[in-house]
């Protein structure tokens, strides 16, 4: 492998999670936190940050230890590693940002069962070098955070008339309360998925047209 293709591979692993293999919008993983905590932009970012910390930490550690972990107990070991990082994130957030912790509460502990994290360990970190695993984890958590942030922003703006707690509209705006309630999560998620699928469908079709045009 040349240095150039190494670099290309690294960029691919980093970028794929943000868009092409976005864990929420493409793989439809981690939908529980994606719906549950995205009633405001700040909550979405905090959840994204905690997941980022857990995913990058466990990916690096799993990749480092991958040749020592017997494959019969690998899932158990991954879970122990993930749970440790989650506990660290849980206590740290509780100590450093009590207000955010109050809102996210139980959902921080539930990062343990976020399938994106265990999925990346099994599918990527346990088979690739530390560097690539770290890049993969960075990209995936960036994609996850981006998705949560989009959901959180839309829901906060529509459902509370504010962005990061700053009111956007005058007193005449009647907030669309349902958007910050659980049904709003499903409505926003469904609408976003529809838009993303429509966009990728359209891109695929135009690429095909181009290909056919070239052949003819």
């Amino acid at each position, binding site marked *: 492998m040349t240095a150039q293709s190494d670099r290309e591979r690294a960029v691919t692993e980093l970028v794929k999670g943000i868009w092409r293999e976005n864990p929420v919008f493409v793989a439809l993983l981690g939908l529980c936190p994606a719906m549950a905590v995205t*009633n405001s932009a700040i909550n979405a970012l905090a959840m994204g940050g905690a997941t980022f910390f857990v995913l990058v930490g466990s990916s690096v550690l799993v990749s480092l230890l991958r040749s*020592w*972990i*017997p*494959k*019969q*107990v690998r899932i*158990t*070991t991954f879970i*122990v*590693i993930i*749970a*440790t990082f989650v*506990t*660290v994130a849980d*206590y*740290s957030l*509780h*100590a*450093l940002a*009590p207000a955010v912790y*109050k809102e996210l509460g139980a959902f921080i502990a539930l990062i343990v069962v976020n399938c994106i994290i265990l999925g990346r360990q099994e599918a990527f970190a346990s088979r690739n070098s530390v560097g690539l695993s770290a890049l993969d984890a960075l990209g995936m958590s960036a994609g996850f955070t981006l998705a949560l942030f989009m959901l959180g922003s839309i829901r906060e703006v529509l*459902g*509370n008339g504010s962005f990061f707690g700053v009111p956007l509209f005058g007193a005449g705006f009647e*907030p669309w*309360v349902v958007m*910050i*309630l659980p049904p709003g999560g499903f409505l926003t998620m469904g609408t976003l998925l529809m838009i993303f699928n429509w966009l990728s469908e359209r891109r695929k079709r135009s690429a095909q047209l181009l290909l056919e045009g070239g052949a003819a």
Partner: protein
Amino acid sequence: MSAEEKEASAFSLVATLGVAGFLAGLFIVGIYQITDPVIKANEAAELHEAVFKVVPGSSQLQALALDNGSVKPLAHGDEAEHVIFAAYDAAGTFKGYAVPAQGPGFQDVIRLIYGFDTSTGKTTGMQVLASKETPGLGDKIIKDQHFVGQFTSRTFDGGELLAAKSGEGTLPQHVDTITGATISSKAVIRIMNETQSLWKDAYPAPGAEPALAAPAEGE
């Protein structure tokens, strides 16, 4: 590939999990040791702030526990089932009581704290500490200025606070409920009434409040 395919011995499986569990335990204990004092301090600061808010003019407090129908100061670090806080100003003059209370709301338990002045029989303030009421509706019990503000001067005359339709309250024990958050606002009133009935005979007579104990060593 052949190294991966070979069966790992039972010992190595157990050893792997044992080591992983042990190290994970060490990490968790470590982070707990670091963060626990900060978390406790944050919670104490939040409680102090709430007490000083519901008892205007206060800046010091001491915990009192219910003991056989009367109250007695709670030693620092001790725990009791029912606790209220006596609040004092900077000079140590008694200003009023702050009473924590909790009970079921619309969705989940509502925790609140209210101030009570035994000399006038009036509430001096109310603040919701934790609730999961519906955003935009029930959570007005925290944000609605009129609702929260009226607790600065309501009385438990005749035993309890009474719910009134917004703007129709005429008596000093009438609390205006919030339109669109009737259940949550009635829950707040009910929680305060229940807690007040627990304490009403235990409050020391006005003027006979326990003096502020000297701060414990090292505080």
